[in-house]
């Protein structure tokens, strides 16, 4: 067993310990954390005239699950792209700073961000479809001697390491219930299985922090359950998890801290059970529907959403009628 993937439980595996840790943190946007692993300052990204992301300050606590939520188009994916080096902030020259474990990442390339220990997955899954599941996994491992062109031709220089990496890949595949598929092409997996594969592949590099962009999207309910429990296990082993979800009720079960984004800004932060009743969050999600309880699962049923849409339409019609008169 490799220590980084299936390791000893961390102190923060205990829910009480996590609650105690975060109880001292003030539940407001941009609040400081006892032991931040990631700190972000003044990141702005404009697309044309539109500001997709405008984050003044954000800290992510080490060793817990932080959920980044917000309605569609809030800028969550763009924010992920910015801090992982896949996009550049418009404010790059005017004070955009972010650091991971105290190391500045302002000018770092995507690959160096990953090497620093912050590994991400993508909202649109990037499984390498015309390669086998096993090849996908093997690519995740870091520091492979055989990836050096000068030694690649001589198996003696990397064969032993390859065996170790394979063993680790088998363990992770087993854990993510993909072992039976190891020799299949990734393109033949279902959407949910590809999400699992992408996550397992990211874990091959022993990250300190894993960033998941909508890991549950398109995954069937049974798999969602196991995905959620995988994420919790990672946290219990000491990994920091930051994951994006636009749907709040999924978030409630597993996150220790919730950051809410709307229209590019961080509008609220707090523990999962209280942040939902924050007026700023309710505004962000529902506009005028203050009286609805966001933590209520029934809210997310189709009828409820339809009802809301109808109400909104009715209200708008009323307003238009008023304006005309």
């Amino acid at each position, binding site marked *: 067993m490799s220590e980084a993937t299936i390791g000893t439980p961390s102190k923060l595996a205990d829910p009480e310990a996590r609650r105690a840790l975060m109880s001292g943190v003030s539940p407001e946007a941009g609040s400081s954390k006892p032991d931040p692993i990631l700190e972000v300052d003044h990141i702005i990204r404009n697309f044309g005239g539109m500001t997709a992301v405008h984050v003044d300050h954000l800290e992510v606590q080490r060793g817990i699950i932080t959920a980044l939520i917000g309605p569609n188009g809030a800028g969550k994916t763009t924010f992920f792209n910015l801090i992982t080096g896949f996009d550049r902030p418009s404010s790059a020259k005017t004070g955009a700073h972010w650091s991971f474990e105290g190391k500045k990442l302002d000018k770092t390339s995507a690959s160096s961000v990953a090497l620093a220990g912050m590994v991400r997955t993508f909202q649109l899954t990037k499984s*390498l479809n*015309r390669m086998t599941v096993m090849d996908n996994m093997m690519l995740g491992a870091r520091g492979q001697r*055989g990836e050096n*062109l000068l030694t690649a031709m001589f198996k003696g220089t990397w064969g032993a390491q390859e065996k170790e990496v394979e063993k680790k890949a088998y363990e992770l595949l*087993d854990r993510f219930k993909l072992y039976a598929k190891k020799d299949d092409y990734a393109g*033949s997996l279902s959407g949910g299985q590809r999400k699992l594969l992408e996550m397992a592949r990211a874990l091959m590099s022993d990250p300190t922090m894993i960033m998941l962009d909508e890991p549950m999207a398109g995954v069937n309910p049974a798999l969602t359950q196991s995905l959620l429990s995988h994420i919790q296990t990672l946290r219990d082993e000491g990994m920091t998890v930051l994951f994006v979800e636009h749907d709040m009720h999924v978030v409630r079960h597993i996150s220790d801290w919730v950051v809410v984004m709307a229209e590019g800004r961080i509008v609220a932060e707090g523990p999962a059970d209280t942040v939902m009743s924050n007026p700023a969050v309710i505004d962000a999600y529902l506009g005028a529907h203050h009286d609805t309880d966001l933590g209520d699962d029934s809210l997310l049923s189709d009828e409820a959403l339809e009802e809301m849409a109808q109400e909104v339409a009715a209200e708008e019609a009323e307003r238009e009628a008023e304006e005309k008169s």
Partner: protein
Amino acid sequence: MSTVSESIPTPDQAQAGDTAAGVYDPNDPQGPPPQRRAMIAAAIFIGYFVVILLVAKFAPGTVGVIARGMLRESLSAQTAAVAIAIIGLNVHFGYTGLLNMGQSGFMLLGAYGFSISIWKGLPMPVGILVGFLAAFVFALILGVPTLKLRGDYLAIVTISAAEILRYVGRLAKLENFTGAAQGIPGSQYRDPFVNLSFFGDGTFDAGGWLPNLQSTGVNGWWVRFVAWLLVALCCVIVFLLARSPWGRLLRGIREDEDAIRSLGKNVFAIKMQALVIGGLFGALGGMVYILPSSMQPDAMGRNLTFFCWTALLLGGAATVFGPVIGAILFFALRVFIQGTAGAIVPDSIMNLSQTAQFAWICVGITLMLLVIFRPQGILGDKRELRFNV
């Protein structure tokens, strides 16, 4: 539409042969699909040559003539030279997904470096090094500005750079350096290579089974022997590279660069390495290409690049032996079509030069049919090409 859904293996097919389905067994041996592919390649090689040899030896009349022409073309040193260049193109396109539309430019540089150096009195090993060095620098110059951009930019830059090189080589002002449009006669650079021969004088035809050629000579068995030996060597190198984690990285980059970046790999550096390696194969191909003939810039223009692409797709991209099978069949097929058309169609309808053109048209149609109906080529794996998302 229906072909696509048919080609995706059903779960049962995909799991056939997977004995340990679902259970993790650390000692589970993995099946070796690459070995099966090598067996298929060997079967095609042997089958093709047995048939051609028998027909060439025993068939009477025109059939025998055509078969002897195909055999001659299949064994020719220039076919081997193009095979080496295709092996390089395969590293670019097949494994890494780089759209190099100027492989003939790499060949041209290798050939110029080799022939000019020897012509100007330098020893042959230096000439070889100069050829490789020129291709290396060319790869760097092409790669630095384009490899960070989308794939199409490399295609545009390579095709124009290769043409620019050829036109520069043709400049009348450079007559004393490159030989301008006429190029450099083979006699100016060939001798050091021919002198290495231990095949002796006289001719050889293996008791009438093979074309009757000089053992050494200008375009005899010696240059063929060395050329095909180099092809074999290049195949071994590509095999060793492709099975390594480095080769895996190339295929990963071909599939999705961003995914590879997100795993902490330096994608730019690896693409550059692939561009250089494939370019060096191209340069070697160029050197071999001019050994049995002369150094003519126009012999290594756009046409040659497109032949390389056709032969690569015919044989199967991203396979070790695909480029070799593709090169042999490509040139043999052309001789076959030209010979057959010449024999069947009367001269009044299609004369000799028209049958040659007709053969090229058929080659173009073959390429189209291939891309539509068998994009993986003869040796490729359908699944590696079908799952397009």
